[in-house]
């Protein structure tokens, strides 16, 4: 069974290395400041053997975005969730973790394409499923869609 590590314990360990980086924690999740995400992720990868990044997700909470990293260690079979928040002001930016896990490559591009969060340091940060020149980011809650038969909705 993949064992979820305690968010509070991981938060304590990250906090010892990177002061001010951690903003909170719960049973399975560590909340980290967005500018520290790369350092926190590097700490988890190098010191706690989190070698596998199954999923990155972004969620639009209207006044802010959350970027959620589900991390797992194949070596030790445990998991933790890393979570960061960025303001919904113009163009939100988060450091890319591609340098640590190549598996983030297509996932970060997808988030940029559909949610409009720019990942700094990504080697190829461009749209993935929509075409260059497309306006807007469809998964945002304020994206206006045309409805078949006329009309618009968010």
């Amino acid at each position, binding site marked *: *069974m*993949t064992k979820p590590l305690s968010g509070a314990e991981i938060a304590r360990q990250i906090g010892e290395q990177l002061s001010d980086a951690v903003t909170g924690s719960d049973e399975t999740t560590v909340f980290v400041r967005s500018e520290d995400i790369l350092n926190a992720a590097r700490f988890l990868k190098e010191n706690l053997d989190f*070698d*596998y*990044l*199954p*999923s990155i*997700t972004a*969620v*639009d909470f209207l006044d802010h975005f959350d970027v*959620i990293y*589900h991390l797992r260690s*194949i070596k030790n*079979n445990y998991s933790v*969730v890393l979570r960061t928040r960025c303001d919904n002001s113009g163009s939100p930016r988060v450091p890319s973790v591609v340098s640590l*896990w*190549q*598996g*983030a*490559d*297509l*996932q970060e591009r*997808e988030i940029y394409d*559909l949610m409009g969060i720019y990942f700094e340091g990504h080697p190829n940060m461009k749209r*993935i*499923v*929509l*075409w260059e020149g497309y306006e807007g980011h*469809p*998964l945002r809650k304020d*994206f206006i*869609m045309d409805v078949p038969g006329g009309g618009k*909705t968010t």
Partner: protein
Amino acid sequence: MGPQHPSTHGVFRMRVTFDGEVILDLEPIFGYLHRGIEKLAEHKTYLQNMPYTDRLDYLASMSNNMAYAMAVEKLAGIEVPERAEYIRVIMAELMRISSHLVGVGALFNDMGAFMTPFLYMYREREKLLDLFEMVCGQRLTYNYMRFGGVSHDIPEEFMPTLKRFIDEMPGFIDEYDQLLAENEIVLARSKGVGILPADKAINASVSGPVLRGSGVKWDLRKNNPYSIYDRFDFEIPTGSVGDVYDRYRVRVEEMRQSVRIVRQAMEQLPEGEVRTRVPTPLKPAPGEAYVCIEAPKGELGFYLVSDGSAKPYRFKIRAPSLINLTMLRDMVVGWKLADAIVTLGSIDICMGEVDR
């Protein structure tokens, strides 16, 4: 190459730079089948989204149904009756056999064994589709699973037909192996081609038979047993070097293991309800859930966020086919065009899932 090309398994384009016939660079280009399922799902109720999951990896709809149903069950705290769990496992494993039959058949198509192995494999897949049709009336888009179970119990004639299939299937797998496993051309085309080392595979979040082909013994059914997989006895086949041949062998061995699981599940299948009552429309309490299962092509995950309404606030699909393509460039650079086609075939993608 592509988007309309017989070897690309759908509408997938690769922008390839050549020196003569040797590949210098490759860039995959996605989006030709993008339907915006994640956005559409935010405008539908939880149950209305079930048919959308059929249209992700349309060669493994039952597995998609199962992952989505499990995610909503975790979000809303719904229990599943024992009989329904067994039926789900039987369906998911039959789906794995069916998906691997297509995957392996298409791989041989790409290798130049045009259509003959493919049709041998389709012979058995046809029987599987008949079985699925029996339980839900559909051959491809099943929409069979529900929150708290499955839509209806299996019909009377299902078990005898399944038993016949399960008894015959190991013989058919032997037949494929006699025809193909030691074939000189197959060996020449697949041994040592498209190598993906284990450390790179893990680093690139690759999952499923591609990861196991590289020699990593990782299978969510064993390493994080969901549903009732801890009750069955089966092995995790792995490759050694991570070439095209290893991935092909892993798929074939997985079919054998799936047959084993289905046989055990048939023996243990209890009587009882197949569905618990859930309120309609379902309104899970605000919260979020990430559930992942071992789908035929890899780790299929659903990340759902609920705001307490009848529609999901966020509906994210962790698609194994897309993420398995991360390493495509590294696997083919320095090889020839024909090897790139075989390598892509051995990753076994489904564009419905890549583009969503």
